[in-house]
Every structure is written in structure tokens, then in C-alpha cells.
């Protein structure tokens, strides 16, 4: 079974979002997504300062087999990409909700994460996709 922390928000395209105390959000891909992709060998993270819109492809994760886009769950400004992934893409496989985070964003609207899925809704989505 997929690991789904209850304190995160999720998207149908398999990203997770963590609200940080300063109002910014941390974004990554879910345990389900990393498992489906297999061993990651390359991650392209967004540069800080970039403006992204919700639904935009803003990062790329590549397994041995294929490249997949990661979509921004919110609109806002990129504060940082996770530079550790340049040399250790496997962190996404090993700790998808921890050291394998992909980017931090300052959302243009504080309410924007409220419309995302909670863990139970994302779980339902996974079941419907299976």
C-alpha cells in the first residue's frame, strides 16, 4: 500500500503539498508516483524566482526508462529547488515526503491549497485509477 501522510495535500497528478509555518509550501511527488516510476536517475528542479501557474509543468523526474513532468499544484513564486537531487535523485525514491522534496513555492493565494485533495480523497483517486 502507498504511504499517505495525513497532514499533506495531494493532486490527481500525484504531487503532494506541505504547508510550512511561514506561509510557503513544499512540493514533491507521492510514494505511489515514485514507485510507479521506478529508480530515478535525474531530476530537473525549477530555479528560484520563477513564476509558475497551478497546473504548469515545473519540474521533470526521469527514471531509467522515461521522463515525466511534475506539475505545480499552486500558482506562485519558486523560492527554491531541492539542489540535493542533482547528485542524489534516488532521494525521491527513498524519502518521497522528506529529503526527496522537489521545490518550495510562495503561493500567490494562501487559500489555493485548500482546494487540493486531502489524504482520503487522494486515496480514493488512486483506487479509481487502479
Amino acid at each position: 500500500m502507498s504511504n499517505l501522510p495525513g497532514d499533506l495535500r495531494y493532486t490527481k497528478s500525484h504531487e503532494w503539498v506541505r504547508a510550512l509555518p511561514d506561509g510557503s509550501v513544499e512540493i514533491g511527488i507521492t510514494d505511489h508516483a515514485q514507485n510507479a516510476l521506478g529508480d530515478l536517475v535525474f531530476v530537473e528542479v525549477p530555479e528560484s524566482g520563477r513564476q509558475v501557474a497551478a497546473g504548469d509543468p515545473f519540474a521533470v523526474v526521469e527514471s531509467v526508462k522515461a521522463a515525466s513532468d511534475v506539475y505545480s499544484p499552486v500558482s506562485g513564486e519558486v523560492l527554491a529547488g531541492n539542489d540535493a537531487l542533482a547528485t542524489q535523485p534516488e532521494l525521491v525514491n527513498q524519502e518521497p515526503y522528506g529529503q526527496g522534496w522537489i521545490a518550495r513555492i510562495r503561493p500567490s493565494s494562501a487559500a489555493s491549497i485548500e482546494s487540493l485533495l486531502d489524504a482520503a480523497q487522494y486515496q480514493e483517486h488512486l483506487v479509481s485509477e487502479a
Partner: protein
Amino acid sequence: MGRRTPLYQQHLEAGARTVDFGGWDMPVHYGSQIEEHHAVRRDAGMFDVSHMCVVDIRGPGSRAFLSRLLANDVARLAAPGKALYTCMLREDGGVLDDLIVYFLEEGLFRAVVNAATADKDIAWMSRHAGEHGVEVIPRRDLAIVAVQGPNARDKTAGALPADCRAPALALEPFFAVRCGDWFVGRTGYTGEEGFEVVLPAVEVAGFWTALATAGVRPCGLGARDTLRLEAGMNLYGSDMDESVTPLESGLAWTVAMKDQREFLGRQALEAQKAAGVPRKLVGLLLEDRGVLRAHQKVRVEGLGEGELTSGTFSPTLERSIGLARVPAGTSGRVQVEIRGKLLAARVVKPPFVRHGKAQIEL
């Protein structure tokens, strides 16, 4: 649902993730493609390749038939058991398939063809067989297991029928031996030592289990692809197909044109040679960060454009490598377009890896 090999249930029980490959449900990996890749480079791994098709060619005219049918020359197969890698061409020089053909005895040869092309190949062979009075016999009653890696032959020996062990271990590279219904070749598609074992489908489950007990790791088609690409070996359907000739596919070495043998496709190849072969297949090593993938565009300063035919991350080199079809004069450095950016790549001569070691300068 696709077609399934006799090992399908065992693959599922071993945790395989399966994909469609040429109409077959095949394991792509059993958990970690990279670990499976390393198992073959460092120890021993096994692949169920029973989706590929054994085709026996039988009859007194079989040598003359294959001499006409294949671009490489079966006259090179003098000793029983010898194997030959070759293309089978259309009249216009397009590659119908690549295959290995073994000489068993006078009047009997065995070919192993790709899964996705098997039906087309058999129809083509049968169409040309008539005039030579030979039988083309697809052997779907047989399964194929490839065991590859530095320890593959040792670990396989104990799982073979007793009368097969000594002759298998005594094989020279690119030879095969028959023992009863079993057929063991010292061949492979990984750049490592090993065997390819053809055996009755009803016996393959026991053989697979015996290999696993001997410490051979099940490996999926994902690892098979990264291993063959590191070894600089072409994949039919990606690196060549009916739209290109072997001369544009890095396979000129497999085409025997020195004598006057009239094989199918020869005239087209001669015409292409005379006019100048416009493109060639080269190896690429990506110098920037990223991953080469099939169909990415290659820009060659002053010469035009080419295209990646295969690309991946090389687990052995920890760099991205690929094969690309580019203008004939290409050398040195090129640029590859990846998601709108132009990244630097260097033209290198495959293989990238053999027997666990890098063959190119990184």
C-alpha cells in the same frame, strides 16, 4: 491482455511489474531495474526471452536458401553449432529483422527472431522457401532463457541436464550445443559472458527455479535494454527498421558483400553505397546533465540534423548514453535538444561497456 510466456505466473509471484512488449505481457523489472542491471554486470542475472521465436529451417536446400535470405553469409557457418548475427532485408534494403542463425547440421539451421516481427518474418521466410524446397518451422513449443554475467556460466551449469553440463562449459564464444531437446548457446545481448538456453516450454519453470536457487537474479526487459545499449547493440524497432538499411544502422559489419552472392537487398545496398550512404549510427555520451532519449533531435554544426534512436541513463557509467542516426560526416561534438535546451554530447564509438568495464573515455 497480451500473450504470455510459460513463466508468466512465476514472474508475478516474484513481484514483476509487467509491460506490453510486441504484444506480450513481459516483466519490465522485479523491483529495481538498476539493481538488476548491476547483478548482470557483477554476478549473474536471468531473462525470460520466450517471447522471441525459434524458427527451424530444414531441408537439403536450407543453406542455399539462407544464403539468399540473409545479408550475412551462412558460408561462415562451417562448424556445427556456430552462430551468426545477421539482418534479413527487403529487396529495397530495409531491415525486416535482425536475428541469430545457428548451424546445427547440414540441412538444419535454427534462427531466433524478435517477438514483434516473428509473424512477419515467418511469412517472409515461407514465401521465399518454396523455390528452395525447405521447411520453415516456428517452434512455439520452446522457451528461451538468457543467463548473463561474469558468474552466469558457472551458476547455470548445475541447472542444466547432466549430459549438457560439460559440453556447455566447453563452448567457445558464439557456439551452441544440442543435448536432447535442449540447446545451449554461448551468446547474449548484454556485453557479458553467459548462455542463452532454448528448452521445451514444459521444462522451463523447473529450470528457472533451479537458476534462482543457484543465485541467479531474475531481470526484466528494462535492465535488458540498458545492458544492451551499454554494450552498443542495436534494438530492432528503435535503432533500425524497414525504413533504413544496415549501412545506416551501424551494421555494415554484418553485411557480407565481398563475393558475388545474390542475397535479397544486395542491389539496393550497392546502389546506396555507390551514391554515398547519407547517414550513420553513432554512439553519444551526454556531457551536460540530463538523460538522452529516443527521438530527441541532434544538431550537427555545418551538417544538419539527426535523431536519437535509443537513449538512457547508463547505470554502469552513471552518465547518459545513446545511439543516434546523424549525417555521415558527423564527428566530435554535437548538440542534443532536450525540452527546448541544447545540451552538449560527444560522439563515441560503441560499445560503451564490455565485461563490466567502461570502453569509452568519460
